[in-house]
């Protein structure tokens, strides 16, 4: 089961600040609901987890993230995440995101194209939910990203001068900043995020079973 999503989200921060977050894989990953980077294996490879914990349901995806491209000039990040959970599902997302200036100096637009693929139980029981669920997840990602970018504004130290990176090959250099110095991206307003995550994941799990159980709890 595969779907492509093209999205545009407003960001409540200037393009430079937003780029500071976007090019930082850890910071960007942290904006994905329930996602976390657990380990960096080399310049472009990371290990991470995505956890959706909802009512009775827990889906823990462990997997790899590879940064395929980080284009300073185009303000574009291209990364692929692949993972599997223990109950027999796997999922992957090929994400290309770049930033465009907006009308005002202190806002910009996050433009994303994601190709989401799911296999196993997820695809068998929940394929029809893929689009709406991905929509919600990306929507939350955008909110968190915007919040992170806004927060980053107050931390000019971590924003490298573009000049240094202008000639950067598409090959990513996220390790230019050692993990220890990475900005700790503030989470989006916790209650809100949690509520969404709960409702969302509950939706996912219950929805997988839609069409599966012609009966009632």
């Amino acid at each position: 089961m595969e779907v492509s999503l093209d999205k545009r989200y407003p960001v409540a921060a200037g393009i430079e600040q937003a780029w500071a977050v976007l090019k930082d894989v850890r910071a960007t990953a942290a904006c994905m609901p329930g996602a976390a980077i657990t380990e960096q294996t080399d310049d472009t490879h990371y290990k991470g987890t995505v956890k959706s914990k909802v009512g009775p349901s827990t889906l823990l995806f462990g997997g790899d993230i590879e940064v395929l491209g980080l284009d300073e000039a185009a303000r574009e990040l291209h990364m692929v995440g692949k993972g599997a959970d223990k109950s027999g599902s796997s999922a992957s997302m090929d994400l290309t995101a770049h930033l465009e200036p907006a009308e005002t100096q202190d806002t910009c637009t996050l433009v994303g194209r994601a190709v989401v693929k799911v296999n196993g139980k997820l695809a068998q029981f929940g394929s029809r939910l893929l689009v709406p669920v991905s929509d919600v997840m990306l929507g939350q990602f955008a909110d968190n990203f915007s919040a992170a970018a806004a927060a980053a504004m107050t931390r000019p130290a971590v924003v490298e001068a573009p000049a240094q990176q202008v000639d950067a090959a598409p090959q990513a250099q996220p390790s230019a900043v050692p993990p220890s110095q990475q900005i700790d991206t503030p989470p989006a307003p916790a209650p809100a995020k949690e509520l969404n995550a709960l409702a969302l994941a509950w939706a996912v799990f219950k929805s997988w079973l839609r069409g599966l159980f012609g009966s009632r709890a």
Partner: protein
Amino acid sequence: MNAPTDPALQERTAALQGMGDSRLRKEDARFIQGKGNYVDDIKLPGMLHMDIVRSPLAHARIKRIDKSEALKVPGVIAVLTAEDLKPIKLHWMPTLAGDVAAVLADGKVHFQMQEVAVVIAEDRYAAADGVEAVQVEYEELEAVIDPYATLAPDAPVIREDLAGKTTGAHGAREHHNHIFTWEAGDKSAADAAFGVAPVTVAARIHYPRVHPCPLETCGCVASFDPVRGELTTYMTSQAPHVVRTVVSMLSGVPESKVRIISPDIGGGFGNKVGVYPGYVCAIVASIVLGKPVKWIEDRIENISTTAFARDYHMDGELAATPDGKITALRVNVIADHGAFDACADPTKFPAGLFHICSGSYDIPAAYACVKGVYTNKAPGGVAYRCSFRVTEAVYLIERMVDILANRLGLDKAEIRRRNLIRKEQFPYASPFGFEYDSGDYHTALAKVLDAVDYKGLRAEQAAKRADPNCPTLMGIGLVTFTEVVGAGPSKMCDILGIGMFDSCEIRVHPTGAAIARMGTITQGQGHQTTYAQIIATELGIPSEVIQVEEGDTSTAPYGLGTYGSRSTPVAGAAIAMAARKIHAKARKIAAHLLEVGEDDLDWEIDRFKVKGDDARFKTMKDICWAAYNNTPAGVEPGLEAVHYYDPPNFTYPFGVYLCVLDIDRGTGETHVRRFLALDDCGVRINPMIIEGQVHGGLTEGYAVAMGQQMPFDAQGNLLGNTLMDYFLPTAVETPHWETDYTVTPSPHHPLGAKGVAESPHVGSIPTFTAAVVDAFEHLGVTNMTMPHTSYRVWQQLKECGAAL
């Protein structure tokens, strides 16, 4: 059976409950009291439970399997992977089709939910916990789902284990995903006929992948006795003796020390013919651990991995004269066999008996070519309640005949009348080399058309079509099919080199009670009831005292099992022949007791009488007793016989089915208003059971035609593998069935019987499609692909501008 008129004789005949009697079923007593003995009911001391770790991906490399967490789960005893099976060379196993199949994935998975590892634990709960704890790392590969795309030059290689193999079990392989190409008929004759034909029609007919889905899933209990070195396995198998042979070959345990017991089976329908990885792993686990190991599939595993059916993509062509006389048939098939060629067909027939596809029609020239291909789907290709690939064949020819009728503006009954093989042409040599044994197709057709007032129905349909405000579309489907069953003559048919005979052994005891054992195995067909009826009539002893036993390879004679409607045609014949051997000996004993010559005796129902002297006779009961204490000189005591029957030919049951349905133009829902099934299965042994078999076959046919499907997405995920989505109709959806019959005995079968259980499945499916398509015919539609769900039918309504 010419029934006697004398009341006394009638009474004695009735007392036997023999051939033709609607005898109530002997097996029911245990089933209605919950005392059936199905495989999951079997509990052995110290028995362990096995569960299977399966791949979420359809095509992937296995990078790593980590058992450690699973082994920590309380109650888990062992976890086996391909690496554990390698030393004993059991990580791959041979298939019935001459291919090999992975028992546990060997570095690569080829279809979704393929077996990757097994967990053996103290109970099924711990086993399930263990399965969840096994960590497997995969590297996803591009999956190939489309059977045409799989033959593209650059298509991913599905079977790396076959690299460099340019020939398979059935000849040359022309592509890395190609299995075989099989031809039948006379291509040049067919091509010539098409060359000069004034009328030709062509169509691509897809018969989608479906699953037999018996209510009981597959399973086994393997029990190896390390002291005696004996392996006993209780197994849901339609062919226990063949399985024993395979198990012996695989395990190295001598066949004499392998015992396969098929207990009560909760429906088979072809799903339980094959040998599955679960069986092999349970057996290995039992041998390794020295304890009984039970494996029971769950429903999702059953639908997803064990033995699908059909998946034939057929390009059919008919050549004809302007007045509708068919002159030639050509058909080219792409057969999607999934990741391993595990079709259950006679060895020499990789496409089964698909070449019955000239059907009930007198077609001078015909040619068929079937190409088998690999895709990233589960293996199978079994005969789902039909003889090998006969359902596909009948579907093809019946669709093509309707399409030709449409082209010529001929009525569907009329075009059949013009092409059906005539009574006097039997035995009829088909263009594919079959010799149809007997038939009277025109009589059967006329009987059905009269019964439903066919003319009246067509008039009603015309009136409805003329009314633009009519909320429904009315369709009439008519099918005149011929099956080929009873595989089969060993000169043509074998499995693993073993001829497809079947067997019977009868022992009659002093009191006149008998035990009979066969190589077949009932899955609901009522063998214990009907087989006894055959013996009762042949030997004149009551059915009630005849015990029929099957399914235990240690007690039953070797037989090929029950599938492809072969029990009555093959085992039924073996029973009659064995009984006749006993009958001949009984005559000797009777002559001895009555002190007359054998030729001075007449047989009458249950006794030998001295010609012309009704007072002097010996009943079979008398003779049975004498057989153990007073046999003539030179005649050994006892009264038993064995017969292995190798049929001289297949049998060819036929039928005429008619369906009337109405389609709701608003929702696309179909309502079957009437369905009449006329079957001719030759001589009828138990009419009650025959009618029951027909009801069941029609209902399965309805399910296949109207709802069953196994949809895959581009990555090879099977969508809809539970009973929520996989269509098994309830009593509410199932139509009311009308049945009728004619009797045209098989000339070569000792009883004249042909077999019936599968005709209604084979015959009804094209009838439903014909009816649905017929409803749209005036709108220019000539074919539609199953299943005819409300959704698909509505799409057709919309396309034709007929949706409300």
